[in-house]
């Protein structure tokens, strides 16, 4: 689905519902559920702490793809990955490729990064992760293509269940992402693909850092 009409901004009630930080109790509930589902939960008090945690999880010289994420930009992780010189930033490598001659190389590299760092649009108290994407290119690596996945998740993204997560995507995230895409790329966004990760079969492959701060949307 791609909508060429500008999407209405979330109203006050929706905004309030999906920007409120989860309580410590709900964070603990979600973290415990993640662990049961094979996803390693880590807690960070601040964005700075989360940034340091990400740094500790990535070895020097690692090949890293940073997903498009307001969260990563806000806490400096996008900058660490793309500009610090510590890693091989896959995003920059893809961007410089010849878009006519290197399509195959682009597709192969983008599909299987060693590490992906990104965020989610909702984390349920039952330990499910929801990610929406306009292009869908980032979803395959999250499911199986990437060697390791690290999510940084502001605690305002914790919702009761998958249904609430879907509402968060359509009613709150989509309008904000649409506005961002129009400004950044000159095109509308769209809830074209949604990934729900309920459980993983390789425990530890995905790490979810829950931050007790409002980060991203």
């Amino acid at each position, binding site marked *: 689905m791609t909508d060429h009409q500008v999407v209405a901004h979330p109203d006050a009630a929706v905004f309030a519902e999906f920007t409120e930080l989860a309580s410590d109790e709900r964070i603990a509930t979600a973290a415990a559920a993640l662990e049961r589902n094979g996803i390693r939960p880590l807690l960070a008090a601040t964005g700075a702490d989360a940034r340091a945690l990400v740094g500790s999880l990535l070895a020097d010289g690692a090949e890293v793809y940073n997903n498009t994420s307001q969260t990563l930009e806000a806490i400096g992780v996008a900058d660490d990955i793309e500009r610090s010189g510590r890693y091989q930033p896959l995003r920059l490598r*893809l961007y410089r490729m010849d878009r006519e001659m290197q399509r195959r190389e*682009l597709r192969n590299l983008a599909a299987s990064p060693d590490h992906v760092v990104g965020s989610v649009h909702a984390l349920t108290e039952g330990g499910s992760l929801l990610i929406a994407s306009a292009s869908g290119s980032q979803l395959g690596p999250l499911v199986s293509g990437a060697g390791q996945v690290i999510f940084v998740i502001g605690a305002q993204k914790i919702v009761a269940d998958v249904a609430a997560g879907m509402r968060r995507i359509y009613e709150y995230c989509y309008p904000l992402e649409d506005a961002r895409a129009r400004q950044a790329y000159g095109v509308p966004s769209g809830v074209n693909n949604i990934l729900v990760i309920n459980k993983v079969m390789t425990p530890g492959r995905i790490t979810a850092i829950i931050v007790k701060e409002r980060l991203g949307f």
Partner: protein
Amino acid sequence: MSDRITPMSMFDYDARPATPGVVLVGTRASRGAYAIRDFLSRNGYPFEWVDAGQPDAVRAVLGVAEVEPSALPLCILPDGSRLPSATVEQVAAGLGMVAAPSRSEYDLTIVGAGPAGLAAAVNAASEGLRTVVVEAVAPGGQAGTTSMIENYLGFPNGISGSELATRATVQARRFGAELLLARSLVGVSADGAGYVTELSDGTLIHGRTVLFASGVEWRRLDVPGIDDLLGAGVYYGAGPSEALACTGSRVVVVGGGNSAGQAVVRFSRYARQVTLLVRGPDLGASMSQYLIDDLTAIPNVDVRVRTEVVGVEADDRLRAVTVRSGDSTEHVGLPADALFICIGGAPRSDGAEGIGLVTNDSGYLVTGSDIANDPRASWPLPREPLPLETNLPGIFAAGDVRCGSVKRCAAAIGEGSMAVALVHRRLAEVGGD
């Protein structure tokens, strides 16, 4: 609600850098701006090109609609700092690319980071040799600008030159090899049993052995007025930074080798029409058959054999190429927005002259048994020169710069790898740490 879809590739969306990159403001006809575009492109730095003649685009990045012409090209670095009248050297320094050597001495100094140099770096560093590579422009050499190498072993679907260079650079660094970029070689001088290599910024590198893998540069086309148009429609090499700018335009490529053929394939994806000019009677003598087959099958490619460039027409940039075909004396104008010259090669052996390395008449470095048989070489040791060794013990040559080498990427990689085994023998000979 509309169900219309905006076509978009992930290049424009999910691969776009999330953090500020380099912005370059300049004119298309500027040689300096082209030099920076080429440098950034070949070193893998994404950048945004802003045409100084487009006020809205200039205002979007600078807040004002015009830039003083004397300040062009203007480069904005990721940290926001601005470099007016920017040069490649300033941009390289501003991006933190100019590092000093970390060691006081190396086992092997490699001059050039093309396929031969990078292969040597990977092999030497992986075997524990303290290895440094110096490169004036960018890793990859001429092969790094190749759009797609389809006959390199192990890549049945081909691999682009830039991707091969990127992978090799990562591999060399992972084993601990150092790469010193953006400085050219000034010269090499004796230093005990080893050698000191001097770079253009005054950096001195002490190496127990040296490998010249400096490759070749494009041979100049001797046509009146052509040098004045460098960067303004005339380019040497495959010009990877210019491909997108050739969209819908008329491109002329000169040359009969694989580099020329690969450039034609690349530009045919963007340009309205690509004309390949070849001086010889056919392509078979110098181009791989798979490329000849590719060119034949591309509808917007026109191959003209027995044709040479005799002139150019231009105002502020190239507008047409004048050619002469066969035995005819008639000069014909060929409308052209860009001319890419991929002819032959001249060895990059300049820095080798001062220390007295023997070259052939064309400047290629003479090695191995050819040294033993060359009356100009006064070989000083009782043993014979090693196969890739020059007339100075401990200085080797590999790849395109070496006299007698096969001018193919795979052959250069083979020679670079082989050189490391010979370096070991030399190091064992001179002993010490």
